[in-house]
């Protein structure tokens, strides 16, 4: 079976890709996708550690990931709603143009 470290590497790279996307892209929607990638990388860690861990029969990792997925769904819904609402006002989703607090 694949050793744990491979999963951790995959998770690390995925996190980095997501992070790079978040800090380099202008489009707010894509930034949100990047955040989802980072969350997924964390989820992968949870699952991998649960699978290779010593927590006995308790499905602790699974529980954590389940709640994480639920939060991610809520976050995506609210985040995208916010982006759409902002777009209605400013007609843009370019993040660097959204730098004033005045609507």
């Amino acid at each position, binding site marked *: 079976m*694949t050793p744990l470290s491979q999963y951790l590497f995959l998770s690390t790279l995925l996190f*980095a*890709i*997501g992070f790079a996307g978040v*800090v380099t892209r202008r489009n707010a*929607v894509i930034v*949100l996708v990047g955040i989802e990638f980072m969350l997924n990388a964390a989820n992968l860690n949870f699952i991998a550690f649960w699978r290779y861990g010593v927590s006995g029969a308790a499905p602790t990792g699974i*529980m954590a990931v389940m*709640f994480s997925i639920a939060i991610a769904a809520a976050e995506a819904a609210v985040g995208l709603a916010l982006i759409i609402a902002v*777009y209605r006002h400013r007609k843009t989703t370019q993040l660097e143009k959204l730098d004033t607090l005045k609507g």
Partner: protein
Amino acid sequence: MPNNISFYIFAVGVLATATAAMRLRNPVHCALAAAAAFAGLAVIYFQLDAEFISFAQLLIYVGAISILVIFAVLLTRGSDIQPGVELASPHWLTGLAIAVLVAFVIAVPVCSSSFGEKIAPKMTVAPVKLIGEELMTRYLFPLETMGLLLTVALIGAAVIALREPEESEIRNPKSEIRKQPTTEELVAEVQP
């Protein structure tokens, strides 16, 4: 080692599609690539014997979040990109450097530690029944909180995204067009 080979195939796939999702010009392509990456991760979860999570990942990330993202892209006219518009933010080089640094920082301890090789996977799986029981006993409070959170998020998202009646809407000529002329307006009596 078929398991190992398939892991590498899917790992490379996930990384490739994730990179594509962060790099492609057209946001719709990005969203589709992200959906592919999420699906690949679901397969990796499945290999890790977390089948419930794997299906949940498919259902929520591929079936719901990707669609949401696509809708958001279309509603914000993200798909009609003008040529020549810079995609990356002005400080993209700094950002990339930080990302690489982060990856490096995390990768170093992973490499230096030895638990990766030492710990053998235990042969327990989590049957759905067990997950259900845990949810209903030990994780009852988080579950209820999560339900509340999701409800709040649902209502909040709907409220935020609702179109506010704008000023232009009030004098929207469309309503004038739709107005049926009344009999008095329409039939004018003209005495010869």
